[in-house]
Every structure is written in structure tokens, then in C-alpha cells.
């Protein structure tokens, strides 16, 4: 028996709709797709197409896969310009724009510090002197975009990029487009907590307590927008300098690990934007706050002392009253 449910009363045509829900291991997490408002055949084909786009993003942008486009960049782009596909180019251009807007705080070129702390595998030889001095290594400003033939060059040999901060969101957005192109206009794509709801339905989303992943902190209804949460729950280590728990979020200029917030949740028009903004918030909550409005985004954060705050436009962004 296929999973079925009746269409919402609003359709008025007595048409029965199916709801499909599938999950696959991708992008290092579980990607879950919920789709409704079409026949089972249409939903099945659309969900397959959506998972295929996610698998493609993984092939291109996985840090852990030595054959991905990203790994090729990290290996070769300091020596000569490396051509990339449209998707990787789009993600890198987005990262460049946000790197500029955030005054350098959003920076995917922080992999050596993460590698030194054991958060990422060390494909590349890591020079310990370079991890101590983040500036000497270079930053995302040293990534050159050769638009004529879509090639990327690194101007410093120590640069290693990790697109985890945006690639997941990009994959979610691409999956939504694939669903829509296949005739499915209602649903949610959720990649390990980075999600995007599309269509007229309000989908209940549970935001988890950062230090107690099984516990619900807040439940909201998400309609036709994206949400991402960054938290260090499963990867906290104790920073020997401050003796406080820290997660894998690195301040690009100091090279220090961020410890002001336990988690940041962003609601935004796209999953890529929501995901990237959580990273900036974790490093500099007040600076990121002032950018949120420009980006049509809102945020909810949990501070290191356990209290929670939201941006003053949070309830408007969700269409709730208080």
C-alpha cells in the first residue's frame, strides 16, 4: 500500500493526493524529502530527480571525497587555474559576495585550522606554523575568479576550501527546483537540519536544544522559506585557551574557535543563504544581525549561558504573532 493522504480541503475538487517521504544518506547526513500534492507516480519521479541533484552536489563539492571538484581545487588551484562546473562556480561566487559583505568573517578557507583541531580529515599536508597565523595562510580574498572560462585560481599555496557551510544549502535549493520542475509544488527538503519548505503549506519544524539534541527548544511553522541551524552539539571540544566548549567555527582573522553562541538558526528565502548566515552569526552575532534585514532573513540564537534571543523581525518572518 503506498503512503496516502487526502488533499487538503482547499482544493475542493475531491482529488486525492499522496504524500511521499523518503530519506537517503547524502552530504554526510540524511537528506529527507517530503513531497505532496500530486499523483504517486509524479511524486516518485520528482523525488528521484531531486535526490539526483543532491548526489551531484556531493560529487562536486564534498570535502571528504578526494575526487570531487572541490578536492581538485584544493590540490591544484595554487599551481594553475582549475575549471569548475556551473554549480561550484555559483557557490563560490555566493561565498565571495558574502565574504565581502561580512568584512571577511564568512570565509570557507579555514580548513587548515579545522584540520589541526581534528574536525576535518587531513588530505593535505598541514603546516603547523600556518595554522597559528591565519593571515599568512591567506583567506578567501586570495581566491581568484576567471569568469571568461569559469576557472578558479588560488593566490596563496596554503589555501584549503571547505564548502560545507553553503554546499548543503545549495543542494537543498537545487532539490526544491528539481521537484518544482517535475511538477511538485508542495513539500520540504531537509538535509541534516538545513531545510526549505515550498508551496502554500505551513510545515512544523522543531528547533533542537544545542546541548541536548533530543530536546525540542522551539517549534515553528515554516511556509515557503528556508531554515538552517548551526550548532556544535556533536562536535564540541574544550578549547585549552579558555576551557570553554567550542565547535568547529573558526574566526578567519584570529584563527580562534567561536564560543559566544551555542547555536544559531536562520530563516531566509534560500537554504544556501540561511546556512551561510548561521556561520556568520556564530562568529559575530551583532554584525550579522544588521545584515539580516537586507537579506530578508531573521535569526534565533542560543547564547553560551543558555539563554535564547531572536532578531526583532523573527515573528514577522515566520508570520506568527508573539
Amino acid at each position, binding site marked *: 500500500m503506498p503512503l496516502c493522504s487526502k488533499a487538503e480541503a482547499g482544493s475542493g475538487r475531491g482529488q486525492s493526493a499522496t504524500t511521499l*517521504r523518503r530519506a537517503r544518506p547524502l552530504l554526510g547526513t*540524511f537528506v529527507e524529502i517530503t513531497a505532496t500534492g500530486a499523483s504517486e507516480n509524479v511524486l516518485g519521479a520528482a523525488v528521484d530527480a531531486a535526490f539526483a541533484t543532491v548526489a551531484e552536489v556531493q560529487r562536486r563539492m564534498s570535502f571528504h571525497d578526494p575526487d570531487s571538484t572541490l578536492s581538485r581545487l584544493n590540490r591544484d588551484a595554487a599551481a594553475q587555474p582549475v575549471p569548475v562546473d556551473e554549480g561550484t562556480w555559483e557557490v563560490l561566487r555566493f561565498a565571495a559576495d558574502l565574504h565581502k559583505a561580512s568584512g571577511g568573517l564568512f570565509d570557507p578557507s579555514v580548513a587548515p585550522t579545522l584540520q589541526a583541531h581534528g574536525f576535518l580529515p587531513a588530505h593535505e599536508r598541514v603546516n603547523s606554523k600556518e595554522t597559528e597565523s591565519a593571515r599568512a595562510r591567506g583567506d578567501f580574498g586570495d581566491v581568484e575568479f576567471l569568469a571568461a572560462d569559469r576557472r578558479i585560481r588560488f593566490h596563496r599555496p596554503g589555501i584549503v576550501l571547505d564548502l560545507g557551510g553553503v554546499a548543503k544549502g545549495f543542494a537543498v535549493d537545487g532539490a526544491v527546483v528539481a521537484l518544482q520542475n517535475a511538477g511538485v509544488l508542495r513539500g520540504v527538503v531537509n538535509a541534516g*537540519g538545513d531545510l526549505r519548505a515550498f508551496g502554500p503549506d505551513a510545515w512544523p519544524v522543531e528547533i533542537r536544544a544545542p546541548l541536548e*539534541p533530543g530536546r525540542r527548544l522551539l517549534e515553528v511553522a515554516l511556509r515557503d522559506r528556508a531554515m538552517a541551524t548551526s550548532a556544535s552539539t556533536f562536535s564540541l571540544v574544550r578549547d585549552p585557551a579558555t576551557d570553554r566548549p567550542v565547535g568547529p567555527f573558526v574566526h578567519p582573522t584570529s584563527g580562534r574557535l567561536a564560543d559566544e553562541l551555542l547555536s544559531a538558526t536562520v530563516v531566509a528565502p534560500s537554504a544556501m543563504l540561511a546556512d551561510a548566515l548561521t556561520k556568520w552569526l556564530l562568529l559575530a552575532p551583532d554584525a550579522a544581525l544588521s545584515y539580516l534585514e537586507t537579506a530578508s532573513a531573521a535569526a534565533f540564537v542560543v547564547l553560551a549561558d543558555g539563554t535564547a534571543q531572536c532578531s526583532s523581525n523573527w515573528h514577522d518572518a515566520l508570520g506568527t504573532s508573539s
Partner: protein
Amino acid sequence: MLTWKTQLFAPAAVVVSGAALAVPAGYAATYLSVEQAQRTLFPGAALTPLGITLNAEQRRAIEGASDTRVRSAEQKIWRASGGGWFIVDEVLGKHEFITYAVALSATGAVKGVEILDYRESYGYEIRRPEWRQQFVGKTAGAPLKLDQDIKNISGATLSCRHVAEGVRRTLALYAAVLKG
């Protein structure tokens, strides 16, 4: 200009230290029954169960090749009429119990992986075999109701490492037992 507003919760404490939580903690979803997964991964094919039980040598070979543990000698493997195999396996992590299916092509390549059943728990029940048993091989339950049954989570979520290891183990199983 945006400002920060303090959120008040009831319960007020955001961080709980020590004490057991009254609210059950976790996430559970059933995506596919075994039969549905078979139809999804091998549409139109007839599937024949193979009733394979691994001997000690095969077990060692699989564990060695995949660098994983084989939890049980009994394997849930079906042969597909057009060629290929359908395998159901479970992974048990610290906080998760996941049933999934792997489809292999006639030449032993991974054609697809689908999660059948996903249980995430931060209590202790996941370590109890009798609690887990209620989910194994279960047919997908009552029809999903759009407005009630579907929950999405944002926040720290688990890596799929155990399932990825399980797929590696399935490939080693193919090489040791199914190939040729």
C-alpha cells in the same frame, strides 16, 4: 534597524544539567516497508530471498575488507529477477537505530540506498534489543497525514557515517559471497 529580543520559554531553563528529561527525546520516521523499498529499487522485478547465513570465514573476510563489524550471521538478501541484489541491514549507533536497503546491480555496483526506518533516541532504550525488535521488518504503518505526522528537525543532526559503513560492508559481502 534590527535588535535582539530575549526569548522566554516555559520551561524557562534552556540548558538542563543532569536530571532525566520528562519528555521523551528523539525522532522517529518510517519511510518505506521492505516491500515498498523493493518496488522502488527494483521496479517490476520479482525478488527471491536467498536465506544466506555467513560462516566464520566469510564473516572474517567481510569484516576485514570493510573494516566494520558483522552484527549477525543471518543476512537479508534477495536476488532480483532482472539481475542484481536487494539487501536489508540495520545499523545501531550510540543514538540511532536505522534500517536501510541497498540495491546492487548485477555487477555489484550500488544502484541505490533507501532508509526504511529511522529511530534516533537520547534515552537508553536504543540499547535494549527488545525495544529495537518492534521496528525490525515492520510494514509502513497508517497512512501519513499531512498535517499531523510529519515533523522536520532543524539543529544538530547525526552523521550518516554508520549507514555509509554499512554500504561498504554490503560491497564486501558481495565480493565474499554473491559474486560469480
